């Protein structure tokens, strides 16, 4: 009689590991999706860039000349 390596316990563990993997993948997809939606909702991408801590002359509005 062949030795049966696969026990019922293994398939249950596999199911659980797969479930946890899918949940983590889903969580990453949700956070990524939220980020994309929130950035797009800003409308003007420069608003997003303006949060950068470095001075960006290209995105500052021009002051009226004297």
């Amino acid at each position: 009689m062949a030795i049966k390596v696969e026990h019922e316990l293994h398939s249950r563990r596999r199911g659980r590991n797969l479930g946890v993997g899918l949940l983590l993948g889903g969580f990453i997809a949700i956070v990524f999706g939220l980020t994309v939606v929130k950035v797009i909702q800003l409308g003007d991408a420069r608003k997003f860039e303006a949060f950068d801590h470095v001075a960006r002359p290209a995105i500052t509005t021009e002051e009226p000349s004297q």
Partner: protein
Amino acid sequence: MTDLSMQQTTQEAGMGDYFALLKPRVMSLVIFTALVGLIVAPVPTHPFIAFVGILCVAVGAGASGALNMWWDADIDRIMKRTAKRPIPSGRVQPQEALAIGLVLSGFSVVLLWLATNALAAFLLAFTIFFYAVVYSMWLKRSTPQNIVIGGLSGALPPMIGWAVATGTVGIESVLMTALIFMWTPPHFWSLAIFVKSDYGNAGVPMLTETHGLRTTRNHILGYMIALVPVSIGLGFTSIGGWTYMATAVAMNIWFGKACYDVWRRDESAADADNYAAEKTAFKVSLAYLFLHFSALMAEVALRTWDLGGW
């Protein structure tokens, strides 16, 4: 003997056992009512944010279910209806349920805050707290009014859905919550009359057992009467309209008649037809809530063709 008991206690849970901790059937009602609250709100929500919002409400509700099962494992073991739940049957350890409940509560509230706004997150946190602490730990074993007050946690999802979209609490969301809140007692007690429960053995005071069936019948009719102004009042707010009002009037007549039938008879009459009136009242109560919220959704759809509202 030892081997057998070892096998029973070390049984590992499958994914489905963890999912069962979240009370998926309760979750479906929560998802439906929260979704209606979100859709009828006057502010449009980005579909993805709406999806995440509803998901957070569903997970939060599931987390409170897990915390409830952790706390109630001792009485669940005694009652026939609940003895097969994951903890009493030994498939999930109580500590696991507690950990899952707490972690999912935290995740759902924080993610809802990040995705939408602080008010929606606060309402979800309050709902979880109310169900797990106020209802499960305090009211359930101390008063026969447990399901009346505890019903608030089941009534709040449309208010959260509304808050996800608008960031506010309006008269509309208060009335949607009040509708479920007032509907819960006649719905639950009509079931409690015809289902032979063993709450008494578990030390849980249920109105049917503490005050008898006559008092329960009186309460069913009383709450039904109190439900009418809430149901009709909701029709006069900004989310109501002809379709909703026609549905509400018809359902109040139908459910009112069913509750009246339950009220007017005694035990001998109920025994004679195997609790037919009580079973009818329970079924009508399900249709009552489903059709009220469906009518609110229909008003939104009709409004896109300028047919909804007043």
